[in-house]
């Protein structure tokens, strides 16, 4: 589905991604772990098309297309979804209004008719139930005054509404209480199919207990320095990153 080759990205003079290689196939779940500041959120921002980062080298193929040539909205309309680590608040823009616009512009880009109001509402009802997002939150402005956990649920609710091919979940578990973690993971699992793929960025095994990865990668200093199966996450949980850092720095 997505094939990232030797991806380098910088902000200003600072190179943050220093040669990422990653291949994700349909139906797979990949976990990306790694110390703070290693470049995980940068990678997800770059894949979503954030123009603050300059791509200096490398390529990304997404279902046969050069991803780096697409605008942010084109990527979204072609099925890339980023659940932000820090979802921002947008006062004055209502959740529902913005989601309706997002869905309809995506449909329009595909030459489809806008979604009927009734169908949209039915979908909202179904998907908000999936992540147990309180209906009153939907009527409010995007994330404004939401608690940390509510913001994360709202991200997954949006994901459910948009039904992406490739979902990148950047620390969706942080800020969720124990029950919410289960609910949200359950939601993510429900959305999984053999046609889509998920990249989960996390620091903790507890999320991976629920969303079981096929592969685990360690990102360090802008590179994927180690990859393995789901047992790698358990090993990291136990031993931390020092042994990997030593291996890399040796």
């Amino acid at each position, binding site marked *: 589905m997505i094939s990232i080759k030797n991806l380098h990205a910088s902000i200003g003079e600072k190179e943050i991604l220093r040669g990422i290689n990653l291949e994700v196939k349909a139906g797979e779940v990949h976990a990306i772990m790694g110390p703070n500041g290693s470049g995980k959120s940068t990678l997800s921002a770059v894949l*979503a*098309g*954030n*123009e*603050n980062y300059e791509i200096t080298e490398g390529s990304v193929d997404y279902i046969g297309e050069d991803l780096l040539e697409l*605008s*942010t*909205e084109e*990527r*979204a*309309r072609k099925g890339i*979804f*980023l659940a*932000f680590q820090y*979802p*921002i608040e*947008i*006062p*004055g*823009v209502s959740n529902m*209004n*913005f*989601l309706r*616009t*997002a*869905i309809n*512009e*995506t449909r329009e*880009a595909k030459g489809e008719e806008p979604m009927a109001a009734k169908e949209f509402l039915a979908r909202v009802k179904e998907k908000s139930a999936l992540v147990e997002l309180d209906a009153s939150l939907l009527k409010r*402005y*995007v994330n404004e005054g939401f608690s940390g956990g509510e913001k994360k649920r709202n991200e997954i609710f*949006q994901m459910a509404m*948009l039904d992406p091919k490739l979902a990148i979940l950047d620390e969706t578990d942080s800020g969720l209480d124990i029950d919410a973690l289960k609910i949200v993971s359950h939601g993510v699992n429900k959305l999984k199919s053999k046609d889509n793929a998920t990249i989960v960025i996390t620091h903790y095994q507890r999320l991976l207990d629920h969303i079981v990865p096929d592969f685990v990668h360690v990102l360090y200093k802008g590179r994927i320095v180690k990859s393995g199966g789901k047992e790698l996450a358990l090993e990291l949980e136990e031993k931390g990153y020092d042994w990997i850092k030593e291996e890399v720095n040796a």
Partner: protein
Amino acid sequence: MTTIIANNKVSEFVSSIANENLPCWEKFSESRKKAKEILTQLDFPTTRNEYWKYSRVTKIARETYHFKNLSEEKIDLDEVRIPDLETYEIVFINGFISLVNSNLPSSDELEIVAFSDSKSHDYDSCFSKNLDSITNIFSALNTAYFTDGVLIKAKGEFAKPIHIIHYSTGENIISQPRNMFVSTTNSSLTILKSSINNNTNKFFQNSVNEFFLEKNSKLNFYVIQDYKKGMNVMTTNVVNQERDSVFSAYNYTIKGDWIRNNTNVFVNGKNCETNLFGAYQPTGSEHIDNHTIVDHLAAHCESNEHYKGTIADKATGVFNGKVFVRKDSQKINAFQSNNNVLLSDEATMNSKPELEIYADDVKCSHGSTSGQLDDEAVFYLQSRGLSKKSATALLIGAFLGEVVEKIEIPELKEKVLELYGME
């Protein structure tokens, strides 16, 4: 004795419009005479004058104009009507009242008298009251040569809005409507002002509105400025508030080549409330200027002012808000803020909120911000599939929406949201 030599430019301008066949010439001849005298002493302001620092009037001053009375023509008002909202309508064409297009109430609660009606009125003596204290050449021009106008006086709780519609058409035409709005003791009145222009070029609309709020009355003044090309618009609103009254002005500018709005509120009585809200969104090379003054001359009052704007392309926005709190006006709460979003590097915003406080027991705040749209918010919305254009529009809507939300008439709010492209 001193001889005053009239400035050439002003005298030329005045002689081009001097026309003593205007309606209601006789009745207001004293005021007109006084204003004409003032005109001989005034010059067109330059940008060296603080009050005109950011708005050049040379473009207006160097033209010659004439009046054109088309008040018998039937015109289509649909574009400014508010769906599902019943209003009365008073139509002016090029500043002249057009009865054939108007729809006036017959009610004991409301009195509407055209100035051209020869009957004298108990408010005649208030004509131009407090206007002189802020004399500028344009209000004097209006007083000297106003085309026509109405006095609207509410005597009860008059809920149905009075919609004043200005229709402008022609080239090098000047239109100088003049209105007076009175809410008598315990009454309420809502005025809505809209404009239509067609085939205008170098059209100059110079209007003056005077407001008198008697004790415990309420007056709402909604203005929608949505002009096609070819209009220069100058408006002057002078408001006089007696005790326990509430005045609220809402000024929504959608489009206009060149607009200058002056709103001056004299709060003469205790326990009054004054609300001034406005939004503007100049694009292209438009120039939109809002100047306001709230003068707290009495104690125990509250004023709230909030203007917001987005400035695109090479457009210019100007905001100047002055709040005076006079020496014995204790217990005043005065809030003022102006927020702007610059949408291009070539856009200009000149914002100056000013507070002058001479009393000691007051709560006042003022502030002004000019910034850019939040890139991160644009990215967030785009990452969900919105085009940059709709993401930007949604954020602008959210920004300006705050002052549109202040509208108390739901149908009107809908219309204004639609005009700004927000749904």
